[in-house]
């Protein structure tokens, strides 16, 4: 994924600094750039604040997009600090950028959530912050009592000197603790078995605010003198404004300004996606009415001939020729020639949109020497970069505040809406909030890349798979990256170390790039959503056509537990045996192999995604052309579950996302126009699509947590389509399912 936020290279521990809070509390955190211990930086970068009354405020440095980071990361700090979780409140940190001699540093560590890395990147770091803070409190108590630090211990909120029966509340020690020098090394971390907070189910810290309507999202930003803006964007991909008439719009009371927004040149790296005309008004609704009243003439776009039908035909034609061989293990051609049975099928994966429920929005106030951004974003450093590019201001004069985010799914890794907002504020000089409509969102997205996957495999006399190829013709996500050579475009679409590499001897992967004009980007679990569906469908077909059991064939291929090298994101290793364990578990739970009535079927699938492992077993009924999902069993192995409640939620959500998308979603283009626009023609699944029999399981593995945000998604769709085949004999080789069955 493009989670490219720079990380502090040197040990973060060196940067821990203590200081006093405004309220007299104790703070611990990172100073900005430069050398450690600069006293001028005491007020910034703090993660831990203990007030004299014992309240603990823990900073969360990562964006909260619904994945639970605002709960999970402070849990890590609180565990090592040894405080009562119920006395902890959480504060959202802004983007922490500081100028250094040779560029910029990130005073709160890397900030950005993508690729299921939020927790794994901060697992050691946040625990060290907590352990160091606890160590300082112990040191302060030991000094006051005139004993050795080693004589003291803690219980939640107190330093304890057991030999004298003395306890001192953390709140009483904060002033002294804040003045003590920090250790060179972080104190040792707790053993997992001693955890009281981490590893236990904790509820979402913001749940009360959410259910009472108080939680603030980007869209809820209101600032002094703020105006409201919308943009009429080009209806055809890559079209530009020829001329526009704003007479009627300007007659609407409350419309303040109307002007052109210039989009990027076709194929060039972008700050924003589309050309258009901005309308600024005294309210969101008046801005929208002003937009409706515009008459805009557009120049003909180079993408005016983009059509989904042509795209699919071109991909098929490309597959007739030879592509770029990106992996060639063993001797694929000879193994295919020697095979006693060969199987070949093609699968089609459509473009899909992210559609986070909070439409894109951004507050921007560009002044001569500074810029303030308030945005729902997954990548605040990208927001800063976008605003800098638009305004020409130095990065350290751009202040980025993050709100709670109404869904991410990868869409808000890209900050095009931030750049647009900065353009409008720069042009008008006003603080403005840019608001997208749902139609703006569906039609101006960085879609999940679409493609045709041609699969071929050969089996020997014993039904053993000896040769395997995946030939993918698709529109690569990397298409618009600066300095990206064509031969590296495949890297976003085929992860070479994915299964079945090293589980089958002769494996070849081949890539063909189709340069359609649709923007593409990272969609939750990027290429895994396509490849898990294709690979797990094809395995099922191979089992069927060679008279083998789909579960047993997978278990035979995965084999025993062993670490295989894995160079793609989520490595450095992949253990296929962990997939076997999950698959056997879900199969047993759902009663795999039991006799089923006519029209009923069970499907299974398993996959390794970004370091984590997941499996699904799904039972369906197909009758009279209608599909009913009867039961869902999902399981995840994320190593160690920091907050099992959040892991469970992500597995449920990933399952729903995977199924909703497979059931009914696709983006198509006709004459350069995106044909979908809102939830009536981009029908996210509703509650009725999901059965009451919907269970999720966490299978612990070791002491190391993996991310969980994307892991539970990729296997849902193939388990579903495999179940449909098992129930009805209908093999779905092109998504969405709603093209074939009523859902």
């Amino acid at each position, binding site marked *: 994924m493009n989670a490219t936020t720079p990380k502090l290279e040197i040990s973060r521990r060196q940067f821990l600094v203590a200081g006093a809070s405004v309220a007299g509390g104790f703070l611990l955190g990172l100073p900005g750039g430069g050398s450690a211990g600069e006293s001028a930086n005491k007020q910034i970068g703090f993660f831990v604040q203990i007030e004299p009354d014992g309240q603990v405020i823990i900073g969360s440095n990562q964006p909260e997009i619904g*994945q639970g980071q605002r709960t999970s990361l402070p849990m890590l700090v609180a565990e090592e600090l040894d405080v009562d979780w119920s006395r902890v409140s959480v504060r959202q940190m802004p983007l922490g950028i500081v100028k250094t001699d040779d560029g910029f540093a990130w005073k709160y560590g890397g900030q950005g959530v993508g690729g299921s890395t939020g927790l794994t990147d901060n697992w050691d770091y946040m625990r060290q912050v907590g352990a160091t803070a606890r160590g300082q409190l112990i040191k302060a108590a030991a000094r006051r009592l005139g004993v050795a630090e080693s004589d003291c211990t803690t219980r939640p909120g107190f330093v304890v000197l057991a030999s004298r029966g003395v306890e001192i509340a953390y709140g009483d020690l904060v002033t002294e603790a804040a003045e003590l020098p920090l250790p060179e090394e972080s104190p040792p971390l707790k053993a997992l078995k001693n955890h009281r907070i981490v590893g236990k189910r904790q509820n979402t810290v913001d749940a009360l605010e*959410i259910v009472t309507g108080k939680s603030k*999202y980007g869209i809820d930003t209101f600032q002094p003198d703020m105006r409201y803006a919308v943009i009429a964007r080009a209806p055809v991909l890559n079209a530009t404004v020829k001329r526009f008439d704003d007479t009627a719009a300007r007659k609407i009371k409350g419309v303040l300004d109307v002007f052109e927004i210039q989009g990027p040149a076709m194929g060039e790296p972008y700050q924003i996606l589309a050309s258009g005309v901005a309308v600024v008004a005294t309210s969101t609704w008046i801005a929208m009415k002003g937009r409706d009243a515009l008459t805009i003439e557009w120049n003909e776009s180079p993408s005016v001939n983009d059509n989904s039908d042509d795209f699919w035909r071109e991909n098929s034609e490309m597959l007739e020729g030879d592509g770029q061989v990106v992996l060639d293990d063993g001797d694929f051609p000879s193994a295919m020639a020697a095979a006693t049975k060969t199987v070949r099928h093609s699968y089609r994966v459509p473009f899909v949109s992210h559609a986070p429920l909070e439409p894109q929005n951004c507050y921007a106030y560009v002044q001569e020497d500074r810029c303030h951004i308030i945005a729902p974003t997954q990548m605040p450093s990208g927001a800063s970069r976008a605003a800098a590019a638009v305004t020409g201001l130095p990065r350290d004069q751009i202040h980025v505040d993050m709100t709670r985010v109404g*869904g991410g799914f990868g869409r808000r890794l890209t900050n095009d809406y931030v750049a647009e907002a900065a353009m409008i504020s720069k042009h008008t000089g006003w603080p403005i909030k840019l608001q997208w409509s749902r139609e703006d969102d569906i039609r101006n997205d960085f879609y999940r890349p679409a493609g045709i996957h041609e699969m071929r495999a050969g089996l020997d006399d014993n039904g053993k798979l000896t040769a395997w190829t995946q030939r993918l013709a698709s529109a690569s996500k990397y298409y618009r990256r600066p300095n990206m050579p064509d031969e590296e475009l495949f890297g976003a679409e085929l992860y070479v170390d994915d299964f079945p590499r090293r589980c089958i001897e002769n494996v070849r992967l081949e890539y063909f790039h189709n340069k359609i004009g649709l923007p593409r980007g990272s969609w939750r679990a990027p290429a895994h959503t396509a490849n898990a569906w294709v690979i797990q469908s094809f395995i099922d077909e191979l089992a069927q056509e060679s008279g083998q059991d789909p579960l047993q064939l997978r278990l035979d291929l995965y084999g025993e537990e062993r670490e295989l090298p894995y160079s793609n994101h989520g490595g450095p290793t992949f253990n296929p045996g962990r997939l076997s364990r999950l698959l056997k578990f879900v199969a047993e739970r759902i009663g795999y192999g039991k006799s089923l009535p006519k029209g009923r079927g069970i499907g299974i699938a398993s996959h390794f995604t970004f370091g984590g492992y997941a499996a699904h077993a799904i039972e369906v009924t197909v009758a009279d052309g209608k599909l009913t999902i009867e039961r869902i069993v999902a399981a995840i192995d994320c190593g160690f579950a920091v907050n099992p409640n959040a892991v469970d939620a992500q597995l*449920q959500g990933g399952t*729903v996302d995977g199924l909703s998308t497979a059931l009914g979603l696709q983006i198509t283009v006709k004459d350069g126009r995106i044909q979908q626009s809102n*939830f009536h023609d981009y029908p996210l699944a509703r509650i*009725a699509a999901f059965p009451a029999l919907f269970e999720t399981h966490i299978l612990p593995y070791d002491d190391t947590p993996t991310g969980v945000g994307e892991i539970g998604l990729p296997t849902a769709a193939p388990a579903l389509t495999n179940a449909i085949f098992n129930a009805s004999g209908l093999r779905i080789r092109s998504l969405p399912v709603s093209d074939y069955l009523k859902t």
Partner: protein
Amino acid sequence: MTTFRINSKTVSFDGDGDTPLLWVLRDELRMTGTKFGCGIGQCGACTVHINGQAQRSCVTPVAAVANQAITTIEGLAAADDRLHPVQQAWLELDVPQCGYCQAGQIMATVDFLKRFPAPSDEDIDNNMTNLCRCGTYARIRKAIHRAAELSAASSSTGARE
């Protein structure tokens, strides 16, 4: 000028009568618990009660609610420690992920449970149409059943709306 009651307070709006109630709530009254998701009544993030009935405020012109009584998520509970049973159930089951749709889900559920005090799963499937992009449906389903239990318990003791 349109006058209506909101969470037991009388308010008036002097803009165009075709302005959707949603945008009056959000931009004029700064009551931001009610969310904008689609603008065409599809997703339900903007669900409020008009005279006790769940309605989608993004497609309700403010003129249509003149002299009507509106309840929003902000007015559902008397206080944070006196939550509505549906909110309590949402907390117990820890339903929210991103949380953006949840105010609408809760407002829809309050109305739904008035009509189906002891709902079956089929009742839920046939009547609950709000979208959740994060996919919290499994917990929403459980929370609806739990809220029905809590409501039954509190109405038997004489409390509640």
